[in-house]
């Protein structure tokens, strides 16, 4: 089945230790998104790729970076995780930008 896959599902890292979260999709969608969701809050868009074009949200900290080496894969790099970066990170895809989005199961990040 076509889907959005996120690895790992749970990630534990230490304060300041770089971490990479991965997302892959078999839907062949041209748009990929990364959201941060803290407990009982709405998902907050960090950035998205429209094809190869990277679009960063104005309030996304520089600590967060992303790479999209090909259509299928997208990575979220957190260069120096702080305690405030502990959250669920959700990857989503869509065909073009205004249509429904398909979400992965998320990666729960814990920062010790």
């Amino acid at each position: 089945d076509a889907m959005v896959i996120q690895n790992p599902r749970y990630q534990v890292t230490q304060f300041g230790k770089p971490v990479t979260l991965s997302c892959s999709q078999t839907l062949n969608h041209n748009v990929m998104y990364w959201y941060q969701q803290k407990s009982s809050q709405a998902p907050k868009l960090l950035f998205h790729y429209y094809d190869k074009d990277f679009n960063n949200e104005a309030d996304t900290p520089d600590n967060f970076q992303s790479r999209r080496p090909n259509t299928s894969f997208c990575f979220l790099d957190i260069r120096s995780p702080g305690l405030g970066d502990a959250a669920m990170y959700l990857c989503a895809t869509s065909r073009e930008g205004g249509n429904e989005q398909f979400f992965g199961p998320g990666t729960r990040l814990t920062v010790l």
Partner: protein
Amino acid sequence: SQQGEEDPQALSIQEGENATMNCSYKTSINNLQWYRQNSGRGLVHLILIRSNEREKHSGRLRVTLDTSKKSSSLLITASRAADTASYFCATLLTLISNFGNEKLTFGTGTRLTIIP
């Protein structure tokens, strides 16, 4: 600031009853979407309603949109225990200058609990 706000924040009903959630937003939109999120999981798209539509149905779901009041409602009829989840509205803003590169802004969500 948050584009969408949902009301109520939490709702508990008996199985078999109908559940209604409301979403209000601030600026003109292209479309509005509803998503469901089970605890600790990703979001699942439920329904999309465009700005020129007033009502849409999908199975036990009914969505209305009132652009004059900048509000939408999601009705779940004959609720089931499996409907227990958080429900989010998400608005797609009208970005005339950036066609094809739009983004959704999610509301605060309604936590729905169905009591068996």
